[in-house]
């Protein structure tokens, strides 16, 4: 049984900045893989290379047995990788329901308009936004917009979901709800690859964690292994809060 997503030696450079350098990892089916690292470590860039927003200079990406290196984002979502954005991108003038319908119409599900609308309503129920279906996306709160990002990606019926900091900026209650939602998504058979700064959450959720620093893979392993890794602790030094939380987890 080969991995669902296999990333081999991927690199991405912006002018003089090596944003991602020779990174390899894999995601198993049904797994939640966490991606952590200090600010500017290249986490979002790595997401962008995986879903085709950027083309890497080196390396190959294989998804469900198919080489997807260099494909455009619209083709990649058809094959089954959907994502959310760290900086939310709602289709502001359209209603919440229309936003999610777009996901169902053009994602892997590739439904007709009517079926997509029904599917969108179901997804909105799952994420707990059904009562806000008809309001314009622009009038949602930040938590609502993050949830909308997740709903839109889910409507595509992906095999793999990339979540880019869906917890950032949420209140503790909202974080708890979102953690539940991510679990529910995985239990529904969708693999998850998530970037997160909220350490407690990612330690709880992830089956394994990949740590990036200055574009390179610093460590990989179970949450406990990663938290004990001296290199990881060193990378986070200076950020006493996170170091503390990491050691809290290990003890």
């Amino acid at each position, binding site marked *: 049984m080969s991995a669902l997503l296999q990333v081999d030696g991927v690199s991405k450079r912006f002018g003089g900045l090596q944003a991602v350098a020779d990174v390899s990892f894999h995601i198993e089916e049904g797994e939640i893989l966490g991606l952590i690292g200090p600010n500017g470590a290249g986490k979002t860039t790595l997401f962008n290379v995986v879903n085709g927003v950027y083309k890497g200079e080196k390396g190959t990406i294989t998804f469900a047995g198919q080489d997807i290196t260099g494909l455009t984002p619209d083709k990649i979502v058809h094959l089954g990788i959907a994502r959310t954005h760290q900086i939310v991108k709602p289709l502001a003038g359209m209603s919440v329901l229309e936003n999610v319908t*777009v996901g169902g119409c053009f994602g892997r599900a590739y439904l007709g308009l009517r079926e997509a609308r029904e599917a969108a309503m179901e997804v909105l129920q799952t994420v707990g936004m059904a009562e806000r279906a008809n309001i314009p996306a622009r009038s949602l709160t930040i938590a609502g917009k993050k949830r909308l990002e997740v709903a839109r990606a889910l409507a*595509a019926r992906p095999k793999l979901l990339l979540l880019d900091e869906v917890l950032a900026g949420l209140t503790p209650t909202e974080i708890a709800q979102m953690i539940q939602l991510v679990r529910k998504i995985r239990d529904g058979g969708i693999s998850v690859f998530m970037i997160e700064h909220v350490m407690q959450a990612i330690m709880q959720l992830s089956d394994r964690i990949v740590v990036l620093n200055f574009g390179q893979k610093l460590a990989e392993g179970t949450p406990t292994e990663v938290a004990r890794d001296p290199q990881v602790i060193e990378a986070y030094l200076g950020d006493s809060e996170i170091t503390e939380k990491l050691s809290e987890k290990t003890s």
Partner: protein
Amino acid sequence: MIFRRLTFWLILALAAMFIILPLRGNNAALREDLILVAIAVTLVSNLNLMIGYTGYVNFGHIVFYGLGGYIGLYLVSERHWNLFLSAFVAGVLVSLVALLFGLGILRLRGAYFALATIGVLVAVNGFVANFNPWGRSTGMYLSFDAYQPLGGPMRALWTTYYLIIGVMALSLILSLAIKRSKFGLGLFAIREDEDAAVVLGINATVYKAIIYSISAFLPAIAGALMFYKNGMIDPSIAFEYMLSLEGIVMLMLGGQGTVVGAALGAGLYERLRSFLLTSPKLSNFHLVIAGGLLLLVVLFASGGIIGWLYRLLPRSREVIE
């Protein structure tokens, strides 16, 4: 289904009104007024597919109309094809040309795309004005014989009038059908946020090229019919830059992104323009009005008349599309 929508029946009622009104007393003057309105509605509602639906401002939309006129007139007068076939072929050819242009310039975004459309207008105009088979800057004239297949000039005028009303109705129905389709949803997503649309699975480059090409088809047919009716064409009337700009004013006035708004804006503005153009003291004053209207709409009511209606009565959104 589109037949269940009120807007569809409004469009049919409008077309019926256009057909019936000038029949009373064989009113040729009224017919000539209405034909200008029908052309304006056709141009603006197709322009709406680009500006209102997809969010791409096309300053050179008049190119489709003028080029359609040239191809149509050429086929009728030089090749002796019949009008129906000539107009249809003009539509198909201009759509193909637009598809080619579109695949090139629609890689650009925002202001750069808008600039490129001005480039297309200037280049096509320049090409036609120097193209020998089409009479260079003096253009082409139809002989009276060209009207014989339609039963002589008088009958031909009425026939082309009905055809143009048909093209107007088709334009509006096309706008409505696209708005209510999956394809239309994709276009609106591109308008809202093109990057997000691509990540959601929409092939934006192809979608934009297709809608640019579609928005060329009926204007080109309208051009072929209109210049056949007028019996002549030259570059300055085929590619009237000012009309291209006024089309944008009409669309913004009525309400971009809405089927009814495009028709309403075109109708109101065209009547106002005709009134101002024909009153001796106010000749060319319509351009002052056009500029002023555009400023007012952009500054204070960016949704135009229909957008204002939507804000006043949010439920009207369901009925007036």
